[in-house]
Each structure stands twice: as C-alpha cells, then as structure tokens.
C-alpha cells in the first residue's frame, strides 16, 4: 500500500515535471541554496531586502528556461522607487506556483502554499 502510493507519487511527479525544465544544471547548488531562504519555517525571519537578494541570486543561477519567470518574481520584490515592471495578479500567481513547484521538486525545499 505504502509502496504503491510512493510509486504512484513518483510517477505523478515525473509526469508533472515540465518538459522544458531540467533536473540538473550548472548553478543548481547556488539556485537551491538561495531558494532555501524562502523555506516555510524561515518565512517569519526574512526581511524584504533578504527576499530580494535571494530572488536575484536565484535569477542568476536559474535554468535558462526559467529566467523570464524569475525576472517577474524579482520585479515583484523591487522597491517601488526602482524601475521594474508588473504583470497581472493572475499571471503573478501562476508564475509563483510554477517556480515554487520547480523549487520544491528540484531542491527539496518546502515552500508555503505550494504543494508538490
């Protein structure tokens, strides 16, 4: 029963893995280390500046196929006084889920409100 569930979960995870996103890439260690700043138990401790710094480092280290999405996330954290662009609330939500699910699967980091 448990083994069956684990196999089904593994197959489900494999089927759901976006085709264009890699499981390995050169800067994965840096990407995942910075993603861990957003781990669910650390959410109360990180400041807005730390969020921005970690997201910028993730953008630099992200797989090529995720660069555009990471840039949208960085822009959400940039102070209003600095140049940045906005997407619609729906698009922002979709992108945080897409990147969040990728982070959970690729890095094993548990993020709030993301289920994988």
């Amino acid at each position, binding site marked *: 029963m448990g083994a069956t569930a684990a196999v089904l979960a593994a197959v489900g995870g494999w089927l759901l893995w976006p085709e264009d996103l890699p499981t390995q890439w050169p800067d994965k260690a840096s990407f995942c280390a910075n993603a861990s700043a*957003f781990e669910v138990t650390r*959410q*109360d401790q990180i400041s807005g500046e730390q969020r921005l710094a970690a*997201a910028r480092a993730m953008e630099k280290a992200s797989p090529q196929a995720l660069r555009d999405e990471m840039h949208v996330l960085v822009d959400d*954290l940039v102070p209003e006084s600095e140049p940045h662009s906005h997407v619609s*609330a729906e698009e922002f939500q979709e992108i*945080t889920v897409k*990147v*969040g699910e990728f982070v959970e699967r690729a890095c094993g980091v548990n993020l709030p*409100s993301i289920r994988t």
Partner: protein
Amino acid sequence: MRRTAIAVAAAILLVAVAASPASAGHGNKANAGPPDNAQQDVQSNSLTTGGKAAVAQGRAQLDRTDITTSVGGSDIHVYDASYTSSWYGQTSCTDRNWLNGKCDHLDVKFNTRTMGSKSTGYWQSLGCHELGHTGGLGHRSHSSDSNDNSCMREEIWPKYFDTHDIDAVNQYV
C-alpha cells in the same frame, strides 16, 4: 512548618496561573504577514454577539487605512468558539505567498472561553487588534505608544488604531 511552606508555594503558583491569561494579551500569532492586496473580504462564521461587535470594530479600523473591507469569503475568515487555550484571539495566515510573504487567506479566531464574560468594549478592542494583524500589524508596547491609544497593545484594551498603526498598514498595501 513544611506544610506551610508548601501551602505558600501552592498559593503563589495559583496566583501565577490565574494571572497568566490576563498577561497573555491577545494571543501569540503576530506573524500573519501583510495582506496581498488592499481589498479584503471578511467572512463571519456564525459569530456570537461579542464576535460580531469585534468584527464590526476591526473592519471600521481597517477602513480608516488604505484597505477597504467588504463582506465575502475570499480573504479573512472569522470564527469564535471556546478554545482550550489562554489566548483571547489569534490570527494566522493560511495561504502565504512564498516569494513575498504576503497573505492571501487569513483565519481570525476569538476565544469565547477567555472573552465570554467581558463587555462589548473589550470585544471591540480584540476585533481591532486581530484585524490589525490581518493588515500586517505587529504588537506595540508602551515605549512606542506612550499615550496608550493603540489597540495593537497586548496588555491594555484601546479600541482604535492610532496614526502610527494606520501609517504602518498603508506602507504594506
């Protein structure tokens, strides 16, 4: 002699336990995180008279900020019940955006066990306090609220946001 010492110790313990709900303030979850936008729906789930007064006061205070509240189920869910705890109320984020920490859904709970015997003014203060947390506010202390008029204090029961609270909410939304 020994028995007296024990009796005295027991008496001290009793006082300490009895005093703790009063000094425990409004509960322990000040970490709700700021709201994700300036339009906040508030859903009251079969509240007591006190709970309704609390929600009305809390919404009126949020409406003094850049937040606009309305009745609806998409953002803030309010409950009251007899919870087996010493807190008066608590607010928690049930759907936090991992990236910016902002909160899409919040649960507010009022504890009828600790609040039941208190008058409407206390409920209004509690509503101001807990809905203040939904606006991203943390706790105030006497050192930053020397005129004692912020409902975000834990040990006294003002019924309103002060201008500092309003400015703080407006920075988040």
